């Protein structure tokens, strides 16, 4: 069950990811990314991380990407016209990415800990309350900092996007 779901959703996720990188129209890119995020959430579910999956959908797909879509529409971005392909950039990019993947696979092969089967969970997943406990107890300080971050970001967005400041 887990395996099937994993294969379905992860391959979909990567396929949509490929769409983001290759499609020309920004709207299609954005929609691919949304789909990729939703598939990612499904993969999270196969890992028993329900809360994270939902947050991923809620924030990444439901808020962030809508914002993207908005901006694309607002700016009326058209599909990228075929500009001159810079061979050097293409080649460099491909090489960097390939070497990255090769490095990763070497890292994965080097240790047996990556090929263990999935461990069994003792209790039914209580991830919401556990994350809540972790967040508000032991991670209180970082949580406060995130609060400051959001405050600053709010101020900043108002400053940057108002047509004329009052």
């Amino acid at each position, binding site marked *: 069950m887990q395996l099937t779901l994993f294969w379905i959703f992860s391959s979909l996720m990567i396929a949509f990811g490929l769409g983001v990188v290759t499609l020309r129209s920004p709207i299609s890119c954005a929609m691919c990314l949304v789909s990729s995020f939703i598939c990612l959430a499904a993969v999270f579910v196969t890992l028993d991380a329900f809360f994270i999956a939902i947050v991923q959908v809620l924030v990444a797909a439901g808020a962030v990407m809508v914002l993207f879509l908005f901006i694309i*529409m607002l700016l009326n971005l058209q599909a990228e016209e075929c500009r001159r392909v810079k061979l050097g950039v293409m080649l460099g990019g491909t090489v960097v990415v390939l070497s990255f993947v090769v490095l990763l696979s070497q890292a994965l092969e080097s240790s047996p800990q990556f090929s263990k089967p999935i461990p069994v969970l003792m209790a039914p997943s209580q991830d919401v309350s556990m994350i809540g406990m972790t967040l508000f107890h032991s991670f209180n300080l970082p949580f406060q900092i995130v609060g400051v971050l959001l405050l600053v970001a709010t101020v900043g967005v108002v400053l940057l996007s108002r047509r004329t400041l009052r």
Partner: protein
Amino acid sequence: MDVSNFISQFFSPAAWSLIKSLGECFMSPTGFLIWTTLLKSALLLVIILGLVSYTVYAERRVSALIQDRLGPNRVGWQGLLQPVADAAKLLLKENFTPKSANYFYFRLASKLAMVPPVLVLGVLPFGSSLFGVPMTIASVNVGALYVLAISSISVYGIVLAGWSSNSKYPFLGGIRSSSQMISYELSLALSLIPIFMLVGSLNLNQIVQYQIVHGWMIAPFWPQGMSLDTLLHPLALLEAFRAGCSLQRVLIWIPLFISFILFFISMFAETNRLPFDLPEAEQELIGGYHTEYSSMGFALFFLGEYTAMIAGAGVITTLFLGGWSLPLVPDGSHGWFWGLVNIAVFFAKVIVILFVFIWVRWTIPRFRYDQLMKLGWYFFFELAVANIFLAALILTYVKR
């Protein structure tokens, strides 16, 4: 055993063993889960589709009655077959795509608009249990968040419809609608937090269970442990009320009631209903984001909108009005009849809320767009946050 023996003689042994293993598969826990879930989904879908079409009908009738008219009353008795006729008309009309529209997204959008509200229904406990099967399609421990997440997804259909029509009015409607939905999602989500704090769970079933024990979220006084017997003894009744009432319970009612109001009003904005139907403001935008749609595309939008309304009403019922529970009515473990009664109770509550939706629609005029956004950002958002603090204070510092 006899029966199975009797049946088995009609089949070859190989076929019989196949049938038997299929049956075992059917009754194994996983198999059982799967087919009951499918059945529940089908059941719910049927109910919802019926409900949607009759909501549309009700909308027309109620609006007529409020305006001293009669409304559709020709097709069938009192016009009850009107939805069927409407559906037939929509299906048979020409499905038209404007030339300058982006075909793929234009077609996709109408489907996308339909899916999320239906998905929301998946976690709603629409009944207690029937034959031991819980009447929730999926009992998720993040149910409430799931509802919010899915409703946040529903923006896409609208935005895409607006954009892909490649026309002014749909575009404006799409943008308006999505920004409105995003804005009100905040107060929608924040207004629920007092409930989560009180119940300590995001699971909708558990929230309903809590309400059965401690009383509906919008009821400050609740006779705890009341049964048919206690009704007859005034002292026991008093005792039940005393047990269900504490200072905290009374005080927490204030933030909960504010939550209820916030959630309710935000729901109007979230489902693009009057007085917040700016995206479809006919006078300004013709039909908003679905201006260019016809036939089935249009029907899907309509369906989506009303499903969203029903789902919203279901969420309100579940979170604030005790879900399928009604005082003194036992749950489904006491027999299938009570299970059915519970389902009926749930939908009755939903229908009452739907009525309020319609009632409000024909009472209150439309807001101006800037007023709408201001209301969302300057008032509801702050109120919701303050409400959370209030609830937190009460829960922490007032004795249970």
